[in-house]
């Protein structure tokens, strides 16, 4: 095994590794035991406090919440991606009056918390006669804030496509727009796919702001359920585990896609200039 920090361990190192393994395992087990004891001492481990989670109605309720989460995530992701693509193309435009507003949007929105945007939609817009339906009170602020993030991903992807590709398109007589649409964007899309999936995990996590909006996604459903059955910690732990299962699968998908994405090559001219010694 070639590694940055350690060689193939010798007998003494192997002994130390064994000791560290035991110590680490014991520490984790001790922590788990402590947690279990704390739960037991507070009477939270009794069967009747967990049994409800083995029943179908409870799961049906939470799965409804998960469905609402997915719906909000998919709609806001679609809106945010469309806006993000427009913003990315805007930032790369040759016209200043397109470039500057797009850049300003991305730079400003990136530094405003999503919750603040939610509050704006929730409490500020109704003052101006714009009282959105519940679903959109969650989706609009998420789309607004994530559009900036997607814009940066798309822009990086477009810039990673070699200049020569665009030049070749122009050389065979395509217009600027055709070159972008038929040559640059398809290549950029493949490269940004992993980042898009991980950003979507972030967006899915953001939908938990439904807790604030009272939109019945997963976390808010958990809140309602906990108020109803009084099983606070159990409910929130189950909710957390559902989020974990869904997001971990999506993150795994992002990694698989990343492994399959062709490595982005450094433009040849730059590489040659960088390593004159080896040439």
């Amino acid at each position: 095994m070639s590694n940055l920090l350690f060689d193939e361990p010798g007998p003494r190192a192997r002994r130390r590794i064994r000791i560290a393994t035991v110590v680490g395992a014991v520490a984790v087990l001790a922590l788990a035991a402590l947690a279990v004891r704390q739960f037991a001492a507070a009477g939270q481990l009794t069967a009747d406090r967990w049994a409800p989670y083995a029943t179908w109605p409870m799961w049906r309720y939470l799965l409804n919440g998960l469905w609402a989460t997915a719906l909000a995530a998919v709609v806001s992701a679609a809106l945010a991606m469309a806006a993000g693509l427009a913003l990315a193309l805007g930032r790369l435009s040759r016209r200043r009056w397109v470039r500057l507003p797009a850049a300003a949007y991305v730079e400003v929105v990136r530094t405003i918390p999503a919750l603040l945007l939610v509050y704006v939609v929730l409490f500020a817009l109704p003052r101006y006669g714009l009282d959105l339906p519940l679903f959109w009170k969650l989706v609009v602020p998420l789309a607004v804030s994530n559009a900036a993030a997607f814009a940066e991903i798309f822009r990086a992807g477009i810039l990673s496509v070699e200049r020569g590709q665009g030049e070749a398109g122009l050389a065979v007589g395509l217009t600027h727009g055709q070159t972008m649409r038929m040559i640059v964007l398809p290549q950029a899309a493949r490269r940004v796919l992993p980042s898009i999936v991980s950003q979507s995990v972030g967006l899915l996590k953001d939908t938990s702001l439904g807790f604030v909006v009272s939109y019945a996604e997963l976390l808010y459903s958990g809140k309602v359920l906990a108020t109803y059955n009084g099983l606070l910690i159990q409910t929130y732990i189950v909710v957390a585990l559902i989020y974990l299962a869904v997001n971990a699968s999506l993150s795994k998908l992002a990694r698989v896609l990343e492994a399959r994405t062709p490595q982005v090559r450094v433009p040849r001219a730059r590489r040659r200039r960088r390593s004159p010694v080896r040439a």
Partner: protein
Amino acid sequence: MSALLDHLPELWQGLIVTLQLTAASFAGAAVLGLVITAMRVSPVGVLRGIGTVYVETFQNLPLLVLLVLAVFGLPEIGLQADLLVTAVIVIAVYEAAYIAEALRSGVNAVSAGQGEAARALGLTFGQSLRHVVLPQALRTVIQPIGNVFIALTMNTSLAAAVGVVDLTAAANRVNLVEAQPIPIFVGAGLAYALIAACAGFVTGRLERRLAVAR
């Protein structure tokens, strides 16, 4: 505009809370993230596993779920702490996963020859990590860590959803009284943007000064 000026003390107080949350949880996340990174690059399989599970878990859980679990759930098993302290701990634990990911990418960017040289000099794992690898790794990840810091600042606003009166909550409260959303929310938004801009400026300067030539 007067709505903003009349309530400057409350908003200022909220800003102070946001800054406290940001500073304290970033400090905690940095220390914890460093420990997790050390575990993830160590030769001990169990520690590597713990580090990986930690990062995977906290990157895939919404911060708000963790905050709700800690603030409303933990008292159920007799663990109750001051609200602000709870929020700081939760945010630090959550962001440590992101710091650890950023740091690990930095460690991976250190060229193998550096590690080999350190070992050739007879440095132990801890010594080569401390004196050779981490200083270089830290320099390459200034920008990513800056991004984590900005995200952390934005994320502290979620504490408002569980009852911490930070800048976001203060802005909301003032708005409920004054019903002047535009100046108040724009003011709060600008304050966040200002924090982020400062962080961006500092990391930009640091990066230029500490850049590692490769």
